[in-house]
């Protein structure tokens, strides 16, 4: 077997193991902490007897391991049980909300990824001169603020003072695409700003790293223009680190989306998760938490695989 294939299979197997371990950790956390679904339904005043009856009825008295595998099987087959608060199936809610969240993340990624790479290239081209310093300064400022603060600053200026965009992301299935995009313009801008900073700084570092190689000096001595050197010689060699950076930041988007959805009252997964935490609706929290964690882990695995596949030394071993 080709050595790179072995490596890929190894990483995939490790990734699956990690996914199972992560789901066990999330399930286990709610197990070992005090209180359970029966307690949440009956409240603090419940007698031991009532609690025991309800636990038996809900199957909570069976061993944790059995319930874990049932729960995991349910998640994998799309049956996540019912929410405690309104008794509705969790899977229906998640199915609806997932598409909204994906819609938001998709547009944020579509704008932030090319923009970050372009800004990274510009920063390298004008290294240590004012464009580089300006870009670094703005990105540093946006790293120093939590997502919801950036969101309210944008709302204050662009929604309230200038009326350019709505301050709440009201979105419904029947809306035309342009209206939908207008509705989510501010959340997308916030997410873009949040990941742009990290992504651009890491892109800049990755390209600068390549720029120190001997073949770049050769290209410069040949008399090529700076942009040609960056575009033809540095960029192809920096693709692997940049793709890793992009993937890591898309994973970061997963977290940012939770907060941004709450700020803009956007009907996505993040809002659902936070609402469930406030209402102590553990089954919903478990389902959403494990989905967020899984997306995060899968994106990280992809980043790992891309960096293996993009490395020519691994593709063509001696």
């Amino acid at each position, binding site marked *: 077997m080709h050595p790179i294939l072995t490596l890929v299979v190894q990483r995939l197997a490790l990734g699956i193991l990690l996914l199972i371990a992560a789901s066990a950790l*999330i399930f286990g956390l709610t197990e070992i902490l*005090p209180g359970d679904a029966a307690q949440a339904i009956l409240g603090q005043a419940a007698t031991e007897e009532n609690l025991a009856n309800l636990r038996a009825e809900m199957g909570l008295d069976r061993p944790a391991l059995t319930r874990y595998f049932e729960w995991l099987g349910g998640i994998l087959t799309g049956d996540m049980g019912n929410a405690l608060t309104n008794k509705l199936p969790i899977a229906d809610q998640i199915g609806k909300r997932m598409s909204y969240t994906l819609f938001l993340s998709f547009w944020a990624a579509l704008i932030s990824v090319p923009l970050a790479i372009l800004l990274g290239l510009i920063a390298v081209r004008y290294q240590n001169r004012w464009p580089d310093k300006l870009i670094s300064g703005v990105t*540093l400022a946006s790293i120093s603020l939590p997502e919801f603060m950036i969101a309210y600053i944008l709302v204050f200026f662009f929604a*309230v003072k200038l009326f350019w965009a709505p*301050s709440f992301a009201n979105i419904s299935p029947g809306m035309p695409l342009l209206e939908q995009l207008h509705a989510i313009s501010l959340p997308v801008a916030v997410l873009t700003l949040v990941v742009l900073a990290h992504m651009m700084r890491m892109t800049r570092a990755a390209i600068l790293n390549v720029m120190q190689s001997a073949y770049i000096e050769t290209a410069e001595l040949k008399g090529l223009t700076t942009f040609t050197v960056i575009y033809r010689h540095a960029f192809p060699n920096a693709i692997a680190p940049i793709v890793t950076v992009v993937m890591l930041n898309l994973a970061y988007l997963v*977290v940012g989306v*939770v907060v941004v959805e709450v700020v803009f009252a956007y009907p996505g997964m993040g809002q659902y998760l936070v609402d469930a935490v406030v209402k102590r609706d553990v089954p919903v929290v478990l389902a959403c938490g494990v989905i967020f964690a899984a997306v995060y882990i899968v994106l990280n695995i992809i980043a790992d695989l891309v960096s293996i596949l993009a490395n020519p030394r691994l593709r063509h071993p001696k």
Partner: protein
Amino acid sequence: MLKNLPLSAAIGLSFTAIYFLAAIFAPVIAPYGMADVVGDVWEPSSAEHLLGTDQIGRDLLTRMIYGGRTTIWIATLATILSFTTGSVLGFLAAVTGGWFDQVMSRFVDLMMAIPSLILALVILSSIEATVITLIILMGLLDATRVYRLARAVAVDISVMDYVEAAKLRGEKLGWIIFREILPNALSPLVAEMGLRFIFMVLFISTLSFLGIGVQPPLADWGGIVKENKEGINFGIGAALYPAIAIATLAISVNLVADWILNRTTSLKGGRG
């Protein structure tokens, strides 16, 4: 020690000092009581109320000072917890190796594979959010990052001759960790401490903003945003003051951490 203090570090140090002093002496400095309703809803800034009033007429400057006190205390204690557990376990793993190192490191890998915010949300759905539980939760979640760094640094140090010599002298584990490794691992750890502190400030603010962090009547910067967010739609900027506070605190702590890192590395001939 303060000779040759660069301007950026001086600015950073003074702002950090101001914030910490305000946090410590909040009851003395604050013009009004934390929960006192002293004016109308969302009054603009005036001589009596420098930053105006909040959504039920409490003095906003007072709220900001008390809020900073809560935010900074929680962040500081969580940072201390995360550093003591993270670095002691990291050093221990590096020195002892073997199964302890394997078990700890794989567990930390697992914890770090899941975003902290998601883990925090899952945990907070089961336990009640009090100041104590929040500190423990944030400190332990963040200890994984410190563990990684401490272990990496300590692995480098633990193969040095002087550590070998200490082991041959028959020194106990405690001596090796605290007298041989800790002093030499301090500078990267201290610089990291600044970053972790800022992360804690952002983390607790986010949790409070989401309504699952610091609970009223206690004020904190994230909570002030949550309380005053409706005002934004009427063009009232009360919710933006915490943004300014967090950003200036974060930038000044960063400047100090940078300076400490530069200073300590140049002392040791450039080794990070």
